[in-house]
C-alpha cells in the first residue's frame, strides 16, 4: 500500500503545524485519500523546535508518525540538521535558503528558496510564510492536486485573509517549481 510521509519542521510560531494540517486536510477531505497529521513541540509557545508530520495513503494508516520521510520542509538550520537523517533516498528536502545555509548532504533532491522573504516581499506579509511553504511542498510532492490544496487553504484561514493566502499559496507553488527546475 502506498504510504507517503511528510515532515514540516522549524521553530514554534512559524505556522508549520497549520501547514501540515492543511496538507493533510487537502488529502483527506478533498483528494479522497486517507491522511493523519500529528505534531510535536516543546512547552514554549514560540521559538522552540516544532514539527508537524503528515502521512498520506490510499488505505488505512496505522502508525501515525514518520518511519522514513519522503519529503521534509526545514525552516531553520537546526531543523535541517536534526531531521534530514531519515529522509529517504530520492526524497525531497525544501529549505528556506536564507535560514538554512549549510545544506544537509544525502541522496535526496534539495530545493532552496527564500521562503520567509518571499512572503514578506512578494506576497506582502511575513505571516503567510507557512502558506508559501505549503504551496511549495504541494508542488514538490504531487500528493494532492493544486486545486484541492487551494480548497483546503481557503477553508482553513479567516475570511478576511482569503486573497492573501491564495496569493501566498500560488507564489510558493510557482517558486518551488522554478527552483526545482533551476
Amino acid at each position, binding site marked *: 500500500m502506498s504510504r507517503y510521509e511528510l515532515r514540516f519542521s522549524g521553530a514554534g510560531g512559524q505556522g508549520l503545524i497549520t501547514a501540515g*494540517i492543511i496538507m*493533510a*486536510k487537502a488529502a*483527506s*477531505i478533498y483528494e479522497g485519500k*486517507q*491522511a*493523519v*497529521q*500529528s*505534531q*510535536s*513541540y*516543546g*512547552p514554549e509557545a514560540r521559538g522552540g523546535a516544532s514539527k508537524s508530520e503528515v502521512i498520506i495513503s490510499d488505505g488505512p494508516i*496505522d*502508525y*501515525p*508518525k514518520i*518511519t522514513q520521510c519522503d519529503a521534509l520542509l526545514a525552516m531553520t538550520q537546526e531543523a535541517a540538521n536534526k531531521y534530514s537523517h531519515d529522509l529517504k533516498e530520492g526524497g525531497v528536502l525544501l529549505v528556506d535558503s536564507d535560514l538554512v545555509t549549510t545544506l544537509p548532504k544525502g541522496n535526496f533532491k534539495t530545493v532552496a528558496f527564500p521562503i520567509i522573504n518571499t512572503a514578506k516581499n512578494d506576497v506582502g506579509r511575513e505571516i503567510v510564510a507557512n502558506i508559501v511553504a505549503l504551496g511549495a511542498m504541494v508542488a514538490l510532492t504531487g500528493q494532492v492536486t493544486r486545486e484541492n490544496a487551494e480548497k483546503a487553504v481557503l477553508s482553513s484561514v479567516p475570511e478576511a485573509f482569503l486573497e492573501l493566502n491564495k496569493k501566498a499559496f500560488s507564489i510558493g507553488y510557482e517558486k518551488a517549481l522554478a527552483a526545482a527546475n533551476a
Partner: protein
Amino acid sequence: MSKKVAFLQGNEAATYGALYAGCNFFAGYPITPSTEVAEVMAAELPKIGGKFIQMEDEIGAMAAILGASLAGSKVLTSTSGPGLSLKQELIGYGCIAEIPCVIYNVMRGGPSTGMPTGPSQSDVMSAKWGTHGDHPAICLTPASVQETYEEVIRAFNLSEKYRTPVMVMPDEIVAHMRERVVFPEPGEIEVVPRKAPTVSPDQYKPYDTSFGDVPPLAAFGSGYKFHVTGLNKAQDGFPTTKAELVQAEEERQVRKVDANVDDIVQFEEYQLADAEVVVVAYGSTSRSARYAVNVAREQGIKAGMFRIKTFWPFPDKQIKALAAKVKGFVIPEMNLGMCSLEIERNAQGKAPVLGIFRVDGEPINPDQILAKIKEVK
C-alpha cells in the same frame, strides 16, 4: 445522502461526541494536552443552552460536574495527569454517591508536571486505583480520532446505565492527531437516557435497590426527596454505619461493573486466529503494533494483536484464554509496565510476557515491536 465529515483533532472529536451524547454541562480547568476540549465546549455549549464553566482549579471542576449531574445534566470534565490527581478525591465521591459523569483525561508524561506536551500511557492504573477504597472503575482507551468520538458517546452511555463515573483516556498522540471523522446522523448511535424514578416523590429513595443494582436517579430540585453524602449510606441516602448495610452497599456498587463485564468490555482481535505471538496494545501504541504485526506476517511470523478498547474492567477472560494457547505476549506501552502487570496476572505463568516500556516522550515505533516479537521463542 452523504454524511458530514471533518478533519479533526482527537480532542475536538471527543467534544463533538459528548455533545452527540447529550452533554449540556462542562466544567474544567485548562491543561495541556487537553485544553482543546474546553475551547470547543466554551464555543459550542452556549449555542444549545448548555453551561460552560471554567473553575478555579481541577478539584472545583470535578465538584461542579458532580453537582450539575445530580441536578439532571449530562456532564463532562477534561484534564491531564496532574489534574487527574487533583480530581481523585471527588471521583471517589462520584463512585460512592453514584453520580453519572465522564472524565476525559489525556495522558501526558508524569508524575507531577512531567512532560506536558509529550505522550504517555501512565495514567491507566490511576484510572482504577487513583481514588481510595473499593469502587467500580470503567476506563476506555481509544486509538483513533473517529474512535475517540464514538467512545466518548459510549462513556456517557455507560455512565448513565451504571450510574457511575466513567473515564476516557486517550494518550497525547491520539488526543492531538488529526484524522477524518464521519459524523453519525442523530439516532444512528444509541444514546442511553438516565433511569428515572417510577415512584411518587415522597416514596422515592435515591439508593432504592428494589429496582436492581442501579437505582433510578431523580434530578435534585425536581421535587423528589433527596440526600447525598460521601459517607456510607442507607437506601434513603442518609449516613449509616450498620455493618450489614455498608457491606451490601459496597458490594453492590462494585457489582454494577463486575456483573456486567461482557456488556462493558470491548476489544479488537487482529490476526489472532493462528497467532503464536500476541501483541497486546491500546491507544496510539496499537497503531504501531498493527504496523509491526503486518510486517511480521510478511516475514512469515504468526503474529497478531489483541487491542484493548476498554482498559477497565480489564479483559481478564480474553487474556486468560489467549495465554493458554500462545507462545508469548508482547506489551508495548508508554509507561514502565502497567498493562504488563495485568497481562502477567492473567497469564498466570502460562505464557511469557515481554514488555517494551518507553517514558521518554517519544512514541513506540513499529521496529521496536517487531524486534520484540522476534524474541518470543
